[in-house]
């Protein structure tokens, strides 16, 4: 085991090994290792290939701030290896490299052909000509872009949960300041939670030495004792209105509502910009110190530290203590050799700047310069520290603002929104940070995520994108997975240098980091894959008997049972039974119930007798048809209202809203799911039903449009004698719990009449033969009853006001422009629904329903036509989407049983 001696503050459990695979090869790590530390200890140095140039990349920050160690874990793409604890049997794969991490075809292409043209904006420039070739370019570019692979079937069985949480205080960041804030809040008796994305609490304390680690442990213990709830590793995705903070942990999204949010997001160490600063082996000082102090890995044999402040010096001391030879600390600051380095015997090159890191696939030497003096140092580990910046992304996204203070070289908050507090120091480095290096050869990376170099940023400034906000949009700097954590400050410095201004100049600016701050999977955002389905009480009966179950709104309904024509014929000739439980059902009850219905329906209900049912449409105040159904009067003060299947929820809202507006003395209750409903229809319906009830079904006692309570097969039912399908029929409503029993009893009673269950499709044919419209299919948001062929239902002479009245009066005065009419096809061809009605080749109307009626032996349908073509027998021309022209003639009476003799029999 290539680990350093055991020490306080380490995260690994030396007694327990964990085995996982990296690109198919078995790797052994220690419990407590991150994927990155276990692989690094195993000798892995190249973790990924970069986004654009496919350059090899190794560990950089080891704290989840950079894109370099994004890997695919058990099929999940874009997982940060340094933030993911290893688990037994985990499968870890590399991303963005083909055919392998070592030999990558796109890297070869990009380096072999400098004219390949991947400079900034290359996709706008290089691939513009010739124009016809774009479709080939696009295919290639699409396959080359993106990180990782998505398998659509991947983990469909896994449950992603959403949990709602309410706390007084939510602290984001478990560093020293965050822990102290959380402890203080919890000790005040406030319900406090703390979110830390790292593998250890304490922030910098956790990886900066034994004493610091002891202090971190002390704070963590105090927080737990004070009752702080600690979520770790977990991260806050953003700060939203109402202090809503999504916190992601494992497969769960916690939706935190916090009285107060404390942002203790801490400081991030920044890279330095010089040629080759992306070579594997070039790491941030804090990353190196994490590997050394938390995972106890000696990170190299011969290290060179490049620094602008004391963080580099501290890292050098840590490395020396770990037995790594530190050949020099290259410090941009002038001065004497630091005492700490003197003790360790490390050369302190002051006033030197980095120029270039060299190496093939891994760093092997670094060139530094002071004025004209250049020195080349051989090394296998370049430790860089470009100072630190406050992580202000969450603050800005929450509605706060910051500015760059060039004198102190820090971002300072200007405005902090109400309900949010900022904890911790904004302190950056006191030293000047070079924007980039002069005199080196090769690419100087500003942005590791999107492979943006100083050359790209400078070019964007030259082309006029002369601020951070503009350059960002052109070069995509700060837009990658790290959302600017590694590049925001440096790109500002580069732009300022190119513009020849100070970095705090307004024109350089600050950009807004957008949530999520870390790679977040869509499955976490989406949560569990709910697809709620409503099933009627006889759903399984239908499914078991070959019913083709289709979606109808939230419901599942049988389309047919395999033989729609036979089902239609059964209804016409003997007996059919259809499950209409999906109809919306409302009870309107109270002293004002009748008066209320008078106001929401265009037709009359006040005069309605008991035990009667009436067809009704509901209009909006603009006169448009919203829904239709039936209204049965059960008592002086109680009505039973049915709506369309998809209209139930909307009608409930509509009715209750107007009731709220008017403040009438009645109540509306939606009983849709509580009541099952079946329509027994056909010439033999009465005889069949009579066998199951003592209720007098004779025509004189229970005529067409009668409503009555009856016991059918022992079940209390409401019978409605209505006929959507055009034959003698009874709509039977009963408690849903008894639905299956009643259905089976009805089927048994109909056995002698060769009863057939029928589905949605046969019902559509049957209703079309009766020219009954389906709201939403034959009508749309512009349809009003006068034009939709229902002037008879609009009672403009009603004494009371009703919804839609004034608009319909206006339409009445204006006159009809279009009409909804029936039509018969002239040549047997059935126009598709949606076919156009044409006059002189111009579309003037459309077909909304059409079928071939076997019983009538012709094509029939419903269409919107101009008002002047709406007279009975007017010849019209239909143009089918297939291109066929179909002659037809307008019909205003129902195709089948127009005098309703069968219905009333």
């Amino acid at each position, binding site marked *: 085991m290539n680990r350093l001696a055991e020490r306080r503050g380490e995260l690994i459990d030396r007694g327990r090994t964990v085995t996982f695979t990296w690109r198919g090869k078995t790797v052994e790590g220690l419990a407590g290792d991150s994927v990155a530390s276990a692989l690094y200890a195993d000798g892995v140095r190249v973790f990924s290939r970069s986004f654009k140039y496919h350059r090899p990349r190794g560990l950089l920050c080891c704290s989840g701030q950079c894109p370099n160690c994004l890997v695919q874990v058990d099929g999940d793409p874009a997982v940060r290896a340094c933030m993911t604890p290893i688990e037994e049997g985990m499968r870890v794969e590399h991303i963005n490299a083909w055919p392998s991490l070592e030999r990558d075809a796109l890297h070869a292409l990009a380096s072999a052909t400098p004219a390949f043209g991947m400079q900034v904006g290359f996709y706008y420039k290089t691939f513009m000509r010739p124009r016809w070739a774009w479709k080939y370019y696009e295919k290639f570019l699409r396959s080359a872009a993106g990180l990782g692979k998505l398998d659509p079937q991947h983990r469909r069985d896994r449950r992603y949960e959403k949990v709602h949480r309410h706390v007084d205080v939510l602290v984001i960041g478990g560093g020293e300041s965050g822990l102290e804030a959380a402890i203080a809040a919890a000790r005040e008796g406030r319900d406090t939670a703390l979110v830390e994305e790292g593998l250890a609490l304490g922030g910098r304390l956790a990886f900066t030495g034994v004493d610091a680690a002891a202090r971190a442990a002390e704070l963590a213990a105090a927080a737990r004792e004070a009752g702080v709830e600690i979520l770790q590793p977990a991260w806050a995705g953003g700060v*939203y*209105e*109402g202090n*809503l903070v999504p916190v992601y942990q494992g497969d769960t999204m916690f939706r935190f*509502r916090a009285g107060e949010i404390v942002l203790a997001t801490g400081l991030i160490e920044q890279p330095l910009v010089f040629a080759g600063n992306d070579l594997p082996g070039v790491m941030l000082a804090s990353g190196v110190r994490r590997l050394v102090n938390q995972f106890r890995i000696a990170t190299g044999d011969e290290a060179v530290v490049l620094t602008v402040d004391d963080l580099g010096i501290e890292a050098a001391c840590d490395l020396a203590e770990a037995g790594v030879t530190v050949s020099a600390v290259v410090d941009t600051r002038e001065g004497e050799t630091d005492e700490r380095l003197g003790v360790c015997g490390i050369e302190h090159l002051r006033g030197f700047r980095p120029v270039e890191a060299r190496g093939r696939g891994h760093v092997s030497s670094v060139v530094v310069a002071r004025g004209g003096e250049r020195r080349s140092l051989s090394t296998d580990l370049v430790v860089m520290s470009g100072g630190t910046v406050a992580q202000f992304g969450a603050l800005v996204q929450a509605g706060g603002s910051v500015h760059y203070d060039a004198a102190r070289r820090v971002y300072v908050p200007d405005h902090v929104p109400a309900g949010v507090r900022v904890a911790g120091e904004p302190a950056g480095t006191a030293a000047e940070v070079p924007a980039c290096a002069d005199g080196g050869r090769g690419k100087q990376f500003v942005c590791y995520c999107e492979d943006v170099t100083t050359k790209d940023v400078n070019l964007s400034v030259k082309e006029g994108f002369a601020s951070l906000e503009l350059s960002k949009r052109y070069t995509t700097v700060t837009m990658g997975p790290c959302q600017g954590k590694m590049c925001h400050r440096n790109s500002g410095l580069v732009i300022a240098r190119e513009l020849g201004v100070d970095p705090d100049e307004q024109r350089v600016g600050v950009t807004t980091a957008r949530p999520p701050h870390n790679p977040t999977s869509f499955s976490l955002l989406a949560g569990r894959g709910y697809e709620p389905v409503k099933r009627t009480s006889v759903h399984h009966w239908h499914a078991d008997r070959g019913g083709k179950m289709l979606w109808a709104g939230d419901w599942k309904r049988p389309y047919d049972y395999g033989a729609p024509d036979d089902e239609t014929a059964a209804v016409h000739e003997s007996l059919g039974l259809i499950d209409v439980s999906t109809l919306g059902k409302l009870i309107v009850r109270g002293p004002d119930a009748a008066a209320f219905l008078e106001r929401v329906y265009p037709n009359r209900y006040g005069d309605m007798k008991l035990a009667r049912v009436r067809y009704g449409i509901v209009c909006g*105040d*603009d006169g448009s048809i919203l829904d239709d159904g039936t209204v049965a009067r059960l008592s002086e003060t109680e009505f039973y209202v049915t709506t369309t299947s998809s209209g139930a929820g909307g009608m*409930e*809202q509509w009715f*209750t*809203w107007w009731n*709220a*507006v008017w*403040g009438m003395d009645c109540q509306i209750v939606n009983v849709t799911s509580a009541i099952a409903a079946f329509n027994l229809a056909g010439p033999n319906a009465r005889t069949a039903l009579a066998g199951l009830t003592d209720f007098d079904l004779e025509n004189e006692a229970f005529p067409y449009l009668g409503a009555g309570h009856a016991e059918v097969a022992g079940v209390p039912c409401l019978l409605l004698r209505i006929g959507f399908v055009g034959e003698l029929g009874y709509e039977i409503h009963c408690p849903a719990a008894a639905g299956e029993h009643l259905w089976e009893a009805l089927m048994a009673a109909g056995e002698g009449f060769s009863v057939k269950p029928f589905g949605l499709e046969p019902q559509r044919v049957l209703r079309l033969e009766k020219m009954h419209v389906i709201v939403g299919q034959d009508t749309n948001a512009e349809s009003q009853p006068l034009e939709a062929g229902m002037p008879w239902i609009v009672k403009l002479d009603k004494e009371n*006001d009703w919804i839609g*009245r*004034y*608009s319909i*009066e*206006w339409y009445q005065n204006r006159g009809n422009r279009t009409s909804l009419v029936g039509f018969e096809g002239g040549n047997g061809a059935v126009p598709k629904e949606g076919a156009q009605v044409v006059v002189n080749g111009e579309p003037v109307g459309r077909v909304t329903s059409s079928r071939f009626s076997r019983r009538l032996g012709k094509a029939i349908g419903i269409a919107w036509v101009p008002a002047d073509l709406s007279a009975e027998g007017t010849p019209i021309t239909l143009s089918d989407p297939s291109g066929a022209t179909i002659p037809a003639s307008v019909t205003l009476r129902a195709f089948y049983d127009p005098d309703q003799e069968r219905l009333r029999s």
Partner: protein
Amino acid sequence: MSFLLECPNCGRRPVDEYAYGGEVTVRPKSADDARALFSYLYFRKNDAGAQREWWFHSSGCREWFQAERDTRTNEVMQVAPPGGLT
């Protein structure tokens, strides 16, 4: 939109529990003034500032109520049962 809204019956809840019902409007009492009728039907004031509006607690008590809300900040000044705003 993720502000909290207080239902007069159920208390403070996330706004996604509710359905928005639009501005509180006054319905004309005749068709005589077509301009007034169509402006009621098709035009909204869309105030930048305090607005009186309808809300339906669809994932709660399923009752309608009214609220006064600042459309710029989503600050809710008052909520009340229908007709109860001061």
